């Protein structure tokens, strides 16, 4: 086990990306953290205090004295933020559940088709992901508009007599999210189901276990790593989603990504936007850390 990179080349492979990430990922995030403790100001940049290193220690003292928890108090006191977080979590949880229910049969079916076909199906499921996210949401704006194809179909089938409103509703957000994230649910599930040992299912069948019971007692437990991966891959990004609720949903009850966007571009309240962002990161990091912890524990056990 090497403790320190030895050769010049090895040092370089580490140092170059390391420096880049510190400069363009870590430092920006620390700046967000710092601004979340600042106050809004009508100036450029629109927040106070600004760290003045030319004033030496005095500057640092004044800077520290200027920081406050005001933005976080605002987050607690204004129900807009709380409702926004709750709505994001709710939409993320429900749509992940829907994704799991829709995605599992698809992945299961894919895993059971002949090998040659499987490769084609994987490409087919992945292909929409390569076409622009924005375009796929825009496609739904076409379909869901008042006199769009969906309503025309429903009217033609006499399911409804007046065209229902789809756009600017939560239903539209759910449709957009389920549509966009389906590959992220199907592919990890498929990856696990495809490796499932057939002989286990045969053994269960030989011992007289009915098919549904085999599915419930053997297939589902064995696919749990795929379920977990799919759920995490969908749940976490959905919470911070911006484009889908902004184009398909209404503006009355924004999701948290929209709130950050509005605080920033609309109200120009950079400190408040930063505080909302910091809380969101904490919210999202918790399940990841939990997952890592669980993964490490199960690794130790085996």
């Amino acid at each position, binding site marked *: 086990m090497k*403790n320190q*990179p030895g050769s010049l*080349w*090895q040092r*370089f*492979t*580490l140092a170059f*990306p*390391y420096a*880049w*990430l*510190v400069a*363009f*990922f*870590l*430092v920006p995030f620390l700046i*967000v953290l710092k601004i979340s403790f600042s106050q809004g100001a009508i100036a450029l*940049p629109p927040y106070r205090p600004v760290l003045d290193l030319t004033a030496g220690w005095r500057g640092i003292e004044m800077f520290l004295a200027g920081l406050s928890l005001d933005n976080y108090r605002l987050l607690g006191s204004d129900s807009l933020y709380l409702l926004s977080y709750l709505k994001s979590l709710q939409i993320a949880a429900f749509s992940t559940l829907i994704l799991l229910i829709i995605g599992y049969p*698809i992945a*299961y*079916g894919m895993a*059971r*088709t*002949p090998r040659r076909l499987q490769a084609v*199906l994987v*490409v087919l499921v*992945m292909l*929409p*992901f*390569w*076409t*622009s*996210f*924005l*375009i796929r949401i*825009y*496609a739904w*704006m*076409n*379909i869901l*508009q008042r*006199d*769009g194809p969906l309503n025309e179909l429903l009217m033609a089938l006499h399911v409804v007599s007046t065209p229902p409103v789809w756009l600017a509703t939560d239903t539209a957000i759910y449709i957009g999210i389920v*549509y966009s994230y*389906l*590959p*992220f649910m199907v*592919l990890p599930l498929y990856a696990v189901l495809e490796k499932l040992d057939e002989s286990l299912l045969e053994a269960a069948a030989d011992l007289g276990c009915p098919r549904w019971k085999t599915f419930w007692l053997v297939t589902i437990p064995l696919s749990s790593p795929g379920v977990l991966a799919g759920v995490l891959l969908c749940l976490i*990004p959905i919470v*911070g*989603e911006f*484009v889908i609720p902004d*184009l398909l949903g209404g503006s009355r009850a924004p999701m948290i*990504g929209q709130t*950050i966007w509005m605080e*920033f571009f609309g109200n120009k309240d*950079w400190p408040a936007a930063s505080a909302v*962002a910091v809380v*969101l990161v904490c919210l999202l990091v918790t399940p*990841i850390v939990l997952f890592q912890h669980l993964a490490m524990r199960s690794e130790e056990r085996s």
Partner: protein
Amino acid sequence: MRKVSAFNILAIVLGIAFLYLPIVILVIYSFNASRLVAVWGGWSTQWYAELAGDAEILQAAFISLRVALVSASAATVLGTLAAVALVRLGRFRGRLLFASMIYAPLVMPEVITGLSMLLLFVAFAVDRGFWTVIIAHTTMAMCFVTVIVQSRLVDFDMSLEEAAMDLGASPLRTFLSVTLPLIVPAIAAAWMLAFALSLDDLVIASFTTGPGATTLPIRIYSAVRLGVKPEINAVCSIFVGVVGVAVLAASLLAKISGARGTPARL
């Protein structure tokens, strides 16, 4: 033997239909002669013709392509180096921080990545524009590159590298003449993913762009915020066509060359 039930087939067919129908409808509507998007006025290519004369859209597309080319290439170099470091260096001081910085952007909401980038550029009084978007996209995409290249490096036969080293090749020489040729398929897939991610990004670009650097997604977004437009249907159809052909060509190429590095997200 595997048995495919009717239910399995139904699930697959419905799933694929759900994924593709909206895109098909979008393409069909882009050939609609009527200005009212919802009313079918017969087949026509007039929106494509109008597009050819729309200097704003064309310029935005050109900027997006340049941003994607530069940032995908930079992200591929940085991401590959990071993957080599993560796989080959074992434990080193600061590994946890390094690994966290690689994986965190994968799940970080774009709104936050964009916000933090913008605040960085403001704090250091950098004028926003073409290059700030490239820096932001490079940072976002390099982490995806690392994950893809890393997965290829992990199941890589180490004895090949060891043999080269035993025969006196320097680590750099070993990398260039042994490792690199073997992981090229993964690197190519990663570059394509980085390119697609950059071309597609709206949120991060919105935060980090400046005057004169309006990318195509930003242009499309501002055009469709208030509703659908036939010209945009045409832009999107072209985009989908180009991407579809590119990805199909790439997967065929991968199949022909028998490469194992698939352009998977995971």
